[in-house]
């Protein structure tokens, strides 16, 4: 194992972790705030990719594709939450089955509307190619993903920690009853957080579409990763989602590179061990 290999793998792991953060950051907030187990989160990711693809087939630029996907999926998320999920608070089994039902329906709709062939989202010329440093190549697009994730992490952190809205959101996480008692509109805040989680998943789907493509099955492929990030980091913790994403991204990459036969084992088994020691995750509170 030489230095180039190590740096290259770390870079790949970090950029995959960045993608996971986009996906799991929102899921973590949804978990933490509403205790909703959302199996539809992977579908938001997949549908987000498809929406962007469709908009871009119509000639729209990449950035418009991202915005369209974010908006469309946020609306879908709000609809699903309003019609079904908000009534199921505290019923994990009901949440799992309802959101799984939606995931299957979205999976099938995806097949009907966009067919079964894998598609690739065309990335703008300014993001293609790679930077060459010594013998190492850093694809610009992967650097871009890290940048997007960092920017979103920063914005989320600022909003949550530094604004009045963030304080209201944290209050809703910590104690919804008290929050309601002091006049916070818990309903609106919860809906907003759910929409934001769905929106981020859609953004992740579009961004991922640029390098792994958009294809049937991507929804259930990525979902366990998002869950693992959330549980390892601790539900509702932004810092936890960030650390968890990087950890999972790196473990996944090194596992696949070093022990291809045991790659998922090297990812999920350490996760389970962390949970055995800290059932609420690294940064979670019981």
């Amino acid at each position, binding site marked *: 194992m030489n230095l180039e290999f190590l740096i290259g793998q770390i870079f790949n792991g970090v950029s995959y972790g960045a993608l996971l953060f986009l996906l799991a950051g929102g899921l973590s907030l949804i978990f933490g705030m509403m205790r909703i187990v959302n199996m539809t989160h992977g579908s938001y990711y997949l549908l987000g990719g498809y929406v962007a693809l469709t908009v871009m087939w119509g000639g729209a630029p990449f950035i418009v594709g991202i915005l369209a996907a974010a908006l469309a999926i946020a609306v879908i998320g709000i609809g699903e939450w309003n019609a079904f999920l908000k009534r199921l608070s505290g019923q994990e089994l009901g949440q799992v089955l309802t959101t799984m039902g939606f995931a299957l329906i979205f999976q099938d709709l995806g097949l009907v509307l966009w067919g079964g062939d894998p598609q690739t989202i065309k990335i703008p010329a300014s993001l293609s190619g790679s930077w060459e440093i010594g013998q190492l190549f850093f694809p610009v697009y992967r650097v871009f993903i890290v940048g997007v994730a960092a920017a979103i992490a920063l914005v989320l952190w600022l909003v949550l920690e530094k604004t009045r809205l963030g304080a209201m959101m944290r209050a809703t996480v910590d104690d919804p009853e008290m929050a309601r008692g002091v006049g916070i509109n818990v309903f609106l805040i919860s809906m907003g957080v759910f929409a934001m989680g769905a929106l981020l998943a859609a953004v992740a789907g579009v961004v991922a579409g640029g390098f792994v493509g958009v294809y049937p099955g991507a929804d259930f492929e990525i979902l366990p990763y998002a869950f693992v990030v959330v549980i390892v980091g601790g539900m509702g913790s932004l810092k936890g989602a960030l650390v968890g994403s990087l950890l999972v991204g790196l473990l996944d990459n090194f596992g696949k590179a070093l022990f291809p*036969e045991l*790659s998922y084992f090297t990812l999920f088994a350490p996760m*389970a061990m962390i949970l055995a020691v800290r059932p609420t995750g690294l940064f979670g509170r019981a």
Partner: protein
Amino acid sequence: MISVPRGTGRAAAIVVVLILLGAPPLLAPYMLSLVTQALIWAMLAMSLDLILGYTGLASLGHAAYLGLGAYSVGILTTRHGANFWVTLAVGILLAALGAAIFGLVALRATGVYFLMITLALGMVVWGLAHRWVSLTAGDNGIASVPRPRGLPWAFTDTLSFYYLVLVAFAVAFVVLWTIVHSPFGKTLVGIRESESRMRTLGYHVWLHKYVGFVIAGAAGGFAGVFWAYYNGFVSPADAELATSVEILLMVALGGRGTLYGPALGAAMIVLLKNVVSVYTHRWLLILGAVYIGTIVYAPEGIVGLLRDRLKERGRVA
């Protein structure tokens, strides 16, 4: 029980047993093979019911035990020519061992956390099936698993294999029924209703949950053994997340905490999937609607619905 007329349950049970014993020779082979499949999934659903329905712990990794049982058969028969009893013993023991290890990790948590940890543990088994290609053949799966060897009968035709599975189902049902009606089973229900109260009464709550968890895993492996023999094929799909959720659906659809409810739910899902897919490619849409409909219209399952209906009628009369 509520004001259900006395003997209704026993009469229904006798009718079901008679149908299961007598009707199969009259069925077309395709239908018979569906019923066989339904019985296998019913065993799985009942095994999950032990921890979900009776102990109140929703596991998102139950397909792992199906996978462990099925891969035991797949690997031992195709590579080592193992006979039925060896595969059965290894399948059950491996699943029990898996559950014994997973239980140590998962039972530290409850509720959402338990759900998530079992998901991660289930993914460990799926990951091994998917990537440990030299052992499991990866995504290609293990094909041409033979019918059981080393038994007095060959079980190569659909009808005799059906009766083999029926015997297995009966064994699973009787064992699980005995467990849930034993003092141990009552303790599990007590833990479901109030863990702190049971602890105060002096019960070793963790140990009861742990033993229940391991038994459920072993029973899942038992079903997995028959699933491999039935299918003649083992693949990572047997252990994947979607399968775990489907077993949860079977239990919820039929009615948690009743054993026969989850068996009924499993039969309904198996028949629905196979019958609907004959008529339309859009069966995922319909299955998705069943998931949502179950929670919206029958949160206590079909058994719960029937019970409410009977109660109402009792009141009117």
